[in-house]
């Protein structure tokens, strides 16, 4: 199992370890099959171009899943994801890496739970945050 992060060891401003993904058109097809989202702009280039897109684009929901991956990996086996928020601000295309990042913004206790809020986002190679969001997790205490 992965290492466990404890609430006491977290501080505001602390960065979550980056996650780098290299989505390919094949991954978009796999995601379409696994999620049931068969909108053609995600795998049919002609269809995408006829819809004023330069290429096929990543599913917003796949980027949402990448953000979930970042947080669930970081919080470890005994962490609990309470909330996951994301906004689709920009499009991303396959064949170029995306970097998923996060930083702890708040550490607090509420109703007996040891909680942490994070600002999270997905950025492209140019450093543009195409998919910003936030997350709340409950962490175990030592």
């Amino acid at each position: 199992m992965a290492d466990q992060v404890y609430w006491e060891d977290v501080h505001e401003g602390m960065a979550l370890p980056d996650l780098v993904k290299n989505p390919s058109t094949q991954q978009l097809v796999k995601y379409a099959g696994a999620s049931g989202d068969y909108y053609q702009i995600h795998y049919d280039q002609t269809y995408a171009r006829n819809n004023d897109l330069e290429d096929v684009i990543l599913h917003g929901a796949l980027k949402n899943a990448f953000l979930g991956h970042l947080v669930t990996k970081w919080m470890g086996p005994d962490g609990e994801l309470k909330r996951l928020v994301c906004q689709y601000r920009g499009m991303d295309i396959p064949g170029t890496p995306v970097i998923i990042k996060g930083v702890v913004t708040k550490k607090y206790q509420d109703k007996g739970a040891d909680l942490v809020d994070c600002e999270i986002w997905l950025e492209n190679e140019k450093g543009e945050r195409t998919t910003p969001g936030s997350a709340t997790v409950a962490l175990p205490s030592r």
Partner: protein
Amino acid sequence: MTTPASFLTEEMRQQAIGQKSEPKTIDVEKGAIIKFAQAIEDDNPVFNDEKVARESRYGGLIAPPTFLRSVGVDRPAYPYDMPFNRLLDGGSDWEYFHPVRAGDRITAVSEIADINERTGRMGLMIITTIVVTYRNQFDQVAATQTSTSIRY
């Protein structure tokens, strides 16, 4: 098509708010969880490896946080025609209350929580807030997903 300067009246807003989809029920299969985890390239053993997951606090495989999209619940129908061709997904806000486990039976219903119009760069836009509630076989709310869609 010419975009009208205004479309929604207060009466139309009130007609739309509270509109619900038909419920959609799926059985969460172990294979579907693993296939989803593989598609998003998340190798966390609680999503992929039943032997390891069995030793975890969950006692078995659970679904990754956004797996519930694969339930494929319909959007609620608008009670009138929407004269807009294009649709954008603005994002999602998930809240989690109970883990989704292999073998769970999940029923999802979507509901229009709010609807407003705004004039932006692309002309008149209708912004709809939809809440999907995912309940398990024990009638517990496993998660809610609030999403924003933009029609223009």
